[in-house]
């Protein structure tokens, strides 16, 4: 692949990474969020503070951790605290600027499901579960969600509400007395969505290069709307792509994947 071609996954990761500012204190979920947060650290935000729920604070892994507790996270951290302290002093204590989450399902109000597909007591698919997400979604200053676009993931109705976004929309979240601002950005492999003022419904605000509105509409389980001033996401720079690919290559090698 030539340096200027890029995959939709690369576009997603790059677009997510750009949202993290230098110095931001970020509570990082495993998988895509971890990939994006570390890309930010390796590019425009060297001072971003990455916190993983297992205990590392200010960690700087040279390869992507497969789990949220890999040794590389402890060895490269400013400090490592007990897991309960992460949730009590740092998250509940109000020190997290951005909670960076993934999800299996999301609805138009940014509510997410990582628990089950189908009925809870007789699930079609039993997913891993909540983990730290419910409190990360509630207590982080704001939340970024990064996940692939598709009819199975962008649904009209969640099978299970694991972690709250804007709930029924409008000021439902504030009414529930939830501290954080909620999901201010949803980054997918097709576009970026943001909550519309007032209704708090997620609307498309930026479309990745080469993606059509039809593609997005077909991949969304509700009648998705577009902001008046939709922009086109800037394509990944050569620098962003090189950094991401080198990082993933180092990771694959470390995890013993075949290239």
């Amino acid at each position, binding site marked *: 692949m030539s340096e200027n071609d890029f995959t939709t996954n690369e576009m997603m990761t790059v677009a997510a990474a750009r949202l993290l500012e230098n110095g931001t204190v970020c509570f990082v979920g495993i998988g895509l969020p971890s990939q994006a947060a570390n890309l930010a650290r390796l590019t425009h935000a060297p001072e971003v503070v990455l916190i993983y729920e297992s205990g590392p604070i200010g960690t700087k892994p040279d390869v992507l951790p497969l789990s949220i507790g890999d040794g590389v996270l402890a060895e490269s951290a400013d400090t490592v605290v007990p897991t309960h302290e992460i949730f009590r002093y740092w998250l509940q204590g109000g020190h997290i600027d951005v909670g960076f989450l993934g999800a299996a399902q999301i609805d138009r109000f940014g509510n997410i499901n990582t628990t089950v597909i189908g009925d809870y007591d007789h699930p079609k698919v039993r997913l891993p579960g909540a983990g730290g997400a419910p409190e990360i979604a509630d207590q982080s200053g704001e939340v970024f969600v990064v996940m692939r676009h598709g009819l199975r993931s962008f649904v009209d109705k969640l099978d299970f509400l*694991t972690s709250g976004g804007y709930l029924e929309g409008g000021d439902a*979240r504030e009414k529930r007395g939830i501290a954080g601002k909620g999901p201010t950005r949803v980054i997918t492999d097709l576009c970026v969505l943001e909550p519309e003022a007032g209704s708090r419904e997620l609307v498309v605000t930026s479309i990745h290069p080469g993606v059509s509105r039809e593609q997005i509409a077909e991949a969304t389980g509700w009648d998705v709307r577009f902001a008046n001033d939709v922009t086109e996401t800037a394509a990944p720079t050569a620098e962003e792509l090189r950094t991401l690919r080198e990082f993933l290559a180092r990771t694959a090698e470390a995890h013993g994947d075949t290239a």
Partner: protein
Amino acid sequence: MAEICTLKHAVAQHLHDGDTVALEGFTHLIPHAAGHEVIRQGRKDLTLIRMTPDLIYDQLIGMGCARKLVFAWGGNPGVGSLHRLRDAVENGWPHPLEIEEHSHAGMANAFVAGASNLPFAVLRGYKATDLVKYNDRIKSVTCPFTGEELAAVPALRPDVGVIHAQRADAKGNVLIHGIVGLQKEVVLSARRSIVTVEEVVDALDPPANSCVLPHWAVDAVCAVPGGAYPSYALGYYERDNRFYKAWDAIAKDRDGFRAWIERHVLGTEDFDGFRASLEAARAEEAGP
């Protein structure tokens, strides 16, 4: 008062059918060897507690050791599902598994409350989640000063707490370092505790303020080098990410899983035997 003994003896002595057991480890220091010994000794009707059940819980559940699972996130990190856990929950194989589901914050606070000999923990949490619809052990309390309503969860007080750690000294004082997770709280919240360690040394000489469990707060200390494998022990060996990925195929179907357990766990005497058996299998696969 810590008894320094074999893992076989410790499990026989302290971990019984029907017990509530927490084998903790937050990616780091997961007590795989202890879990295998529980399978070898054929324990039944266990209530298993863990924030992040992974491969060893998949194995215990697949072998029918568990009646109930208390957890917050059950998966193979970075890989996908735990197929034995899913088969138990989705299809009741080998028998139905009751589940009590929490968030990490809820369970972490519940272990702290258990270690503190409190009956419950208070947290800001469970504010907008369906978990409360399916778990009647998540309640609320009102602050007597501000009138605020907060979430309350019952303290976790397992019958047996099982962890792996880096080192113990000859008396049984235990040192844990790196990602300490809730290892200390699991031992202090449990009625009985088993700690497997990489090695028993003459003196711990822990750095100031490191995570140490005094020998008089632990029941059994067992030297099991590599006992966290395929998890890791910081300063001793790294996580075998290849094994975590390979587990997906092993656990996918019931017969393959059974065959694997019978060959490598039930077919071996102890964890050294298990590691040797794995090596032999790998050599075979590699071929001549």
